[in-house]
């Protein structure tokens, strides 16, 4: 009915049901209203007073009416310049959806950190010593994986979002049972959906980490220092990697309305003030999907944010070149199969200049927990390539997971 047949009509308002019609021609284009000339100083006589249209008189122009009462149903926020927290100097904010172009390198520059690959040595020895705590440890882990990947749903297989979360919670529960004393367990608690805020200056720019990151395990005791004093002082010689011509503030959200605050997410009288480990899961929203490098950068930035907020609370917001007690925060990220382990140590809050003592970070990237967990076997040319069920389980990933969990408690 919309555009009929060979003699389609102009869309505007015409419909005709005949096939041949001499007046299916185009109508004249709508006339533009004549331009109004403003002559300053000239008093315009309008028909406003007469309350009805009079040809020849001008149209009255009234000031826009604004409500003198506050109506929350129809509230329009003022433009940025008129807001109370507006500042001339912009602030670059890293939030949980930011995908940094250069990934871990950019995060290292922003936080003045030296990146080491692999976990710190004594954590690795701790991981090896936990080899056979309980005889059926590996069987328990495999059961946990099977529960998350196969048994948790009434459908044929659970979604990625669901199974990665279930797997993480199962592994955490396993680690808690493997902990030697229950008193150590009582000194830890899990927290979720807390809002973090940390502010720091780097060069001439102001940076902030804001947002709700993943699951946090907090504890009553702080994590011990991971490396010795001489290693910390050796970081002075390390030169931060720059990536000209890309500016380090690329992809960060630039805001002019902000509040310079540092907040760990909890109140001052919280019983478990020290952030122990952060657990991150990959988001499944296709719009905000992060590449592996960007995911690691996100873990890094939030671990740094937690450490910095804690440091500001303990030692004040004045930049300090060397903290008395370096603050350590761990982070684990996973997509259900591949794990990324991160240990971050905050040595200094003096992030203004590029020289001086740097913070340190140990990153163990792409550790696989298992190869395949298939519901149906992969068969090529009538030969089973990958069997159904869990295959290719590697114990190393869980050992590291357990080591990070038990670090500082055992």
């Amino acid at each position: 009915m919309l555009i009929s047949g060979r003699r389609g009509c102009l869309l505007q308002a015409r419909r005709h049901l005949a096939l041949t019609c001499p007046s299916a021609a185009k109508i004249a284009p709508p006339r533009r209203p004549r331009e109004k000339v403003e002559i300053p100083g000239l008093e315009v006589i309008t028909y406003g007073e007469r309350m009805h249209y009079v040809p020849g008189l001008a149209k009255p122009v009234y000031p826009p009416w604004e409500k003198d009462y506050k109506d929350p149903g129809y509230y329009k926020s003022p433009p940025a310049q008129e807001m109370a927290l507006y500042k001339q100097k912009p602030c670059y904010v890293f939030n949980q959806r930011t995908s940094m172009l250069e990934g871990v390198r950019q995060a290292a520059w922003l936080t003045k950190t030296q990146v080491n690959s692999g976990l710190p040595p004594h954590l690795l020895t701790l991981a090896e010593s936990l080899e056979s705590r309980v005889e059926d440890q590996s069987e328990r882990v495999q059961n946990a994986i099977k529960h998350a990947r196969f048994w948790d749903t009434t459908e044929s297989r659970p979604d990625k979002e669901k199974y990665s979360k279930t797997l993480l919670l199962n592994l955490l529960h396993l680690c808690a049972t493997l902990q030697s004393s229950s008193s150590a367990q009582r000194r830890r608690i899990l927290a979720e959906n807390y809002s973090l805020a940390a502010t720091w200056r780097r060069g001439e720019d102001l940076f902030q980490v804001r947002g709700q990151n993943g699951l946090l395990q907090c504890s009553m005791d702080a994590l011990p220092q991971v490396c010795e004093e001489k290693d910390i002082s050796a970081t002075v010689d390390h030169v931060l990697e720059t990536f000209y011509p890309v500016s380090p503030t690329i992809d960060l959200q630039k805001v002019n309305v902000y509040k310079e605050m540092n907040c760990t997410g909890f109140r001052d009288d919280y019983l478990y003030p020290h952030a122990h480990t952060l657990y991150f899961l990959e988001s499944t929203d296709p719009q905000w999907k992060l590449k592996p490098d960007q995911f690691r950068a996100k873990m890094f930035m939030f671990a740094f944010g937690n450490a910095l907020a804690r440091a500001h609370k303990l030692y004040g917001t004045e930049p300090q070149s060397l903290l008395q007690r370096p603050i350590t925060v761990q982070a684990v990220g996973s997509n259900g199969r591949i794990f990324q382990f991160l240990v971050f140590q905050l040595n200094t809050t003096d992030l203004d200049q590029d020289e001086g003592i740097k913070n340190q970070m140990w990153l163990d990237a792409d550790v696989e927990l298992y190869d395949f967990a298939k519901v149906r076997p992969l068969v090529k040319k009538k030969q089973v390539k990958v069997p159904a069920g869990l295959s290719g389980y590697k114990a190393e990933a869980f050992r590291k997971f357990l080591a990070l969990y038990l670090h500082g408690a055992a």
Partner: protein
Amino acid sequence: MAVSCLTRALRSLSLSRPVLVSSQAAPQPKLGALVSSGAGQWRGFLTTASLEQNRTYWKQREKYSIRPMGMKKTGGRDHTGRVRTHGIGGGHKQKYRMIDFQRLRYEAPDGGRPFEEKVVEVRYDPCRSADIALVAGGNRKRWIIATETMQAGNIIKTSGVIGRMAVSANEGDAYPLGALPVGTLVNNLEVQPGRGAEYIRAAGTSGVLLRKVNGTAIVQLPSKQQVQVLETCMVTVGRVSNVDHNKRVIGKAGRNRWLGIRPSSGLWQRKGGWAGRKIKPLPPMKSYVNRPSISAA
């Protein structure tokens, strides 16, 4: 009000006598100018909302973004809904990536110095024959037309400065025509400074800088046509990417349909003077340089 329109129009329906609809319908602009001519001719009235599907709202975004955006296909139809160009329709869905053709676009409004950018990614663009490259410089990222040997990780330079000596340009860099040596292969030519590249953008094409004549430069386009432009017009050095595009073989009718090309009419039509090989001299050089004429004084 709509109901009263409807009832008034329905009341005017009458098969016996000619309808004087115009006087009744005049105050309602929605029904349009109904013409009462002849006997029994009746104009229907609009029962649907105005057709917005022909509007090109998806193209009206002013702010630049690197995110691919959904396109609406026109099928060769214009704003009236009729076929303006035959042979267009169907084909795979495509997302439009906003390409920045103005290479010399400074990030800060007061920037005037040459700058460098890093190529992040070179990828296929469904909307054109050439490949596109995502480049990042300073705080911004943008898409540009990729040149032949551009790869991820390269650094490309853009400069608006014309020095006394010609610059030895690398491929992918953008300079004004006055700064390049004569004989360089160029692409993405803009004919007026600041207008944005409109020529030599197709896959594998390149123009040649022929000579530089006091303040203007003469470039030969891929069609051998010569063009005279101001020497401050920006141009990129090298050939456009996807060089083997003209050697590809479509192979089957279906591939053409995937590209959105519908079959031409099978009706045999007598060919006129336009058909056949033509051998004629090159058209005269086209000049885009506006000089104030003597007669204007």
